C-alpha cells in the first residue's frame, strides 16, 4: 500500500514538473522569458484607461499563444466592428456577457450600436492598445509589458508561431 502511494506521488510530481517545464518552455519560445516572473499583482490593470488587464499579454507570452482571451473591459466600438475583429469577442449587454455573434445574430442589436467590450483575444487587444505606457509605469518589478503589445501589434503572433 505504501509503495503504491509513493508511485502515485512520484507520477503526480513528474506530471506537475513536466507541465511547469512546458509552460516555461513556451515563455522562452515566445521570446519573453521574463513573463515567468510576473506574479499577477494586477497593478497594471488599474492603470489602463481601456480597462485592459495587461497581465493577459504576459499570460499570452507565457503560453506562447496570442489567441488567449484577456479582459478588456472599457473599449467602445460599434458592434459591427467588434464582430469583424472576432465574433467570439465577449461584450457587456446589460448585466449579461455575450459574444459579438450572439449580440448580432440572436439578440438583434443593430450593428451600428456602440458596445463596450469585456474579453478579447490578446492579438486584437494589442491592436487597440493606445500605447500610452501606463502599464509599464505601474509594474512594481518594471516588466516591459508594452514590448509584448508592440510585438503583437506588428507581428500578430509570437516569434515561433
Amino acid at each position, binding site marked *: 500500500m505504501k509503495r503504491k502511494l509513493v508511485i502515485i506521488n512520484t507520477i503526480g510530481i513528474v506530471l506537475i514538473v513536466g507541465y511547469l517545464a512546458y509552460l516555461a518552455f513556451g515563455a522562452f519560445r515566445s521570446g519573453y522569458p521574463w513573463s515567468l516572473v510576473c506574479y499577477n499583482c494586477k497593478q497594471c*490593470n*488599474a*492603470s489602463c*484607461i*481601456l*480597462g485592459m488587464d495587461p497581465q493577459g499579454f504576459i499570460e499570452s507570452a507565457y503560453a506562447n499563444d496570442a489567441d488567449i482571451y484577456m*479582459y478588456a*473591459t*472599457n473599449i*467602445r*466600438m*460599434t458592434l459591427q466592428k467588434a464582430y469583424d475583429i472576432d465574433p467570439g469577442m465577449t461584450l*457587456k449587454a446589460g448585466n449579461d456577457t455575450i459574444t459579438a455573434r450572439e449580440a448580432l445574430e440572436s439578440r438583434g442589436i443593430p450593428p451600428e450600436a*456602440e458596445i463596450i467590450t*469585456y474579453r478579447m483575444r490578446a492579438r486584437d487587444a494589442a491592436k487597440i492598445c*493606445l*500605447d*500610452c*505606457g*501606463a502599464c509599464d*509605469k505601474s509594474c512594481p518589478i518594471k516588466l516591459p509589458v508594452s514590448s509584448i503589445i508592440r510585438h503583437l501589434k506588428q507581428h500578430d503572433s509570437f516569434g515561433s508561431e
Partner: protein
Amino acid sequence: MFKQPVTKLLLCILIVLLGALVALQKSFPTFPGDYPRTAPPIEYNCAYFDERVEIRLAKGSKLGRLIVFAYDGNNKFIGLLKPVENGAVVVRRGDYADFTACVEGSEIRDVIFLKKMDRYDKKIDMFDALTGARNNNLRYGVQRCLYPICTRCVEACKSVISNSDIPIVMTVKPEGEVLPVFSKGKCPRCGKCFTFCPTGSIVNSSETQHTEGQ
C-alpha cells in the same frame, strides 16, 4: 599686466565661465533634430439632441479615439475616451465618464479612474456633464492629447534629460483642454516626444502641414 588685481579677477571669472560651459555641455545633450510643437487644436461642431451630443470633427484623428471633457462647478475635469466613427464622436445618455481630475490654475492632478474592471466606482453621466457645462457656461470640448492617462512624451523626455527640469510642461489651456507646452531653451531636440506620442498631439516643428490619419 597679469599682476593687476582686476586682470586676475577677470581671468578667474573667464575660467569659471568656461568651466561652467563645459559642464553644461556634458550634462545637457543636444541632437541635430527639430524642436517639437503642439498640433493645432481640433476643430469641431457640437450638435445637441435629446439623448445624445454629436461632436463632428473637421479632421480625422490619428488614434481614432479622443477624450471628451467637461468641467463641473468645482473645476473638476471629467473625461471620457470615445472612438471616432464616421468623423464624429457621439456621447449618449448612459455613457459614463472614465476618469476625473482636479484642476488648479493650469495644473492637473489627482486623477481618479471611475471604472474598475466592468464596474463603476462612481457613475458620472457624460451626457449630463456636457449639457451641464454648456448650460452653466463652463468649459467643455474634445482633446487629442490623452494626458493625464498617457505620459509617453514626459517619460521619453525624462529618459534623455537626467535632471527633473524637463522642457515639457502639461498645461491646462484657457479653453479647458490639456496640452504640452515646450520650453525651447531646455529642449535637446532628440525628437522622442513626437516619435512616441500616440495621438499626434506633438509634431515635428519642421512639418509645414499637420498630417492626420483619416
